[in-house]
């Protein structure tokens, strides 16, 4: 039998939030931790099933080897692409300093 997973902690939620670049307040952490724990408890019900002999499913669709022929298709106009960006320079997307974003 599978061991019951440890319930998710407040620190786990804070960590996952940071990875997803979500800034959660202390109140939100208190609110979401039990909610996420409830979701995971539901998943644990599934985990408790005996799946011996069941082949893992990578995809719900009964499809495999869906590939396309290697033929060039038109790209889209650069002006239209860059028009959607908040900051542009020399035909490129201009973004803030990269390493400063790392926490």
């Amino acid at each position, binding site marked *: 039998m599978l061991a019951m997973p440890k319930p998710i902690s407040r620190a786990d939620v804070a960590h996952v939030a940071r990875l997803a670049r979500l800034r959660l307040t202390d109140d939100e952490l208190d609110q979401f931790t039990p909610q996420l724990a409830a979701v995971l408890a539901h998943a644990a019900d599934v985990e408790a099933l005996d799946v011996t002999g069941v082949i893992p499913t990578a995809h719900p669709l009964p499809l*495999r080897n*869906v590939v*396309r022929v290697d033929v060039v*298709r038109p790209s889209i106009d*650069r002006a239209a692409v860059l028009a959607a960006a908040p900051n542009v320079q020399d035909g490129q997307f201009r*973004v803030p300093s*990269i*390493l400063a974003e790392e926490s």
Partner: protein
Amino acid sequence: MTEVIEFQPGWELIVGLEVHCELATKTKMFCGCRNEFGHEPNTNVCPTCLGLPGSLPVVNGSAVEYAMRLGRALQCTVSPSVFARKNYFYPDMPKDYQVTQYDKPTNTAGKLELPDGSFVGITRAHLEEDTGKTSHQGGDGRIHGAESSLVDYNRAGVPLVEIVSEPDIRTADQAKAYVDELRKIVLALGVSDAKMEEGSMRVDANVSVRPVGEPEFRTRCEIKNINSIRSVGRAIEYEAKRHIALYDVGEKPTQETRHWDEEHGRTRAGRSKENSDDYRYFDEPDLVPLVPTADDIARIDAALPMLPASRRRRLAEITGAAAADVTLVVDRGHDDFVVSVVGVGADAKKTLTRVENDLPPDQPITLAPQSFAQLVIMETAGELTATQAKQVLAEMLENGGDPKAIAAAKGFEAMASGALEAVVDGIIAANPADWAEFVVADDKARKKLSGFFTGQVMKATQGQADGRAVAEVLARRAAR
């Protein structure tokens, strides 16, 4: 038990390499945008490779084919594979995740043979998409202190195969040889142009050291930004020395990603490597598994070209030369020619020497193997001297033609027979005192005088006489 190679007295170097190869497909991995280097920024982009909402990826069949070809060339097992999302926030990936193969890669458990006959294990070779290209502005121009970055997504979504080696490499030279060999294999397969200077082949090195005899691996650092095969060796040596220096003063390296600084010949700390858990890999819901059949694999195997290691082995067998001595000719792509020439009856060793030394190294050979074989046969039979053979060959390369006819036109044939004796006799007659001395001299003195006579003959024949033949005529005349 294999012998331990010491990097420095008492220390063993441990290296594993991750090589990224951009595949030479016409289009990107998951969309029909052009896969070409050197276009204006952001001109080869579409909703899919820009990660716009509602767009869906479709796998490029050629990329899968190329990846399997490379896998089989590296003697990997090709298995059913599943794409996954590797989640991270960095502006080089507009989707905020990179599609890659994680726990079910196409190729696993292969090996690569180096020219010295050693093997490096291949852990895996998986398919993924390349990231966009960021260039940093402001600060001192390097990544540190940059105030803003410009992003070009032409490269985002270009198909890549990442080839991960086992930590089997023990010297910087072996690491260089591995990258060089992998490059040759990729080129032979035609799956990538493998240009390190254009970034279509990129190398990351995982480097650590350990005291000789210690069974466990120690902390490793991943060195990125290595832009040439030469830098592969320099970066590894620098990093290993840095580790040893730290251990020597009782400290230890921190596990981290470091960047090779070519200009200053050193590595620098970069951002610390995130735990692979932090990438929160999960199966890509928009793509279905790739399941190659046994027939697919058999078809790929059958179509594999002869690879460098097999070419070296074949040439070494034919010529009796050591594998290391045929590398040059194989690398130049001249080995098929040697095989053909030897096949029509020319001496194998002589052919190898002539091809290696006297054919232009950086051009394909346009000579007919039959003509070249004829030349080698004439030289081996003593109809042409080494000097004459080279002159005939130069003429063949310049204007083509049959070596026999060229030799005849240059008057080389006559020289090899009676004409040589006549010239020698003339020289003897012109130098009676020296000749008298030669006739009575002992072996040692004769050798010296023989040099004089041979020099005279060479002068008279403009170097077209065969030194050995001259010595024979002299000996015959003296014995009379």
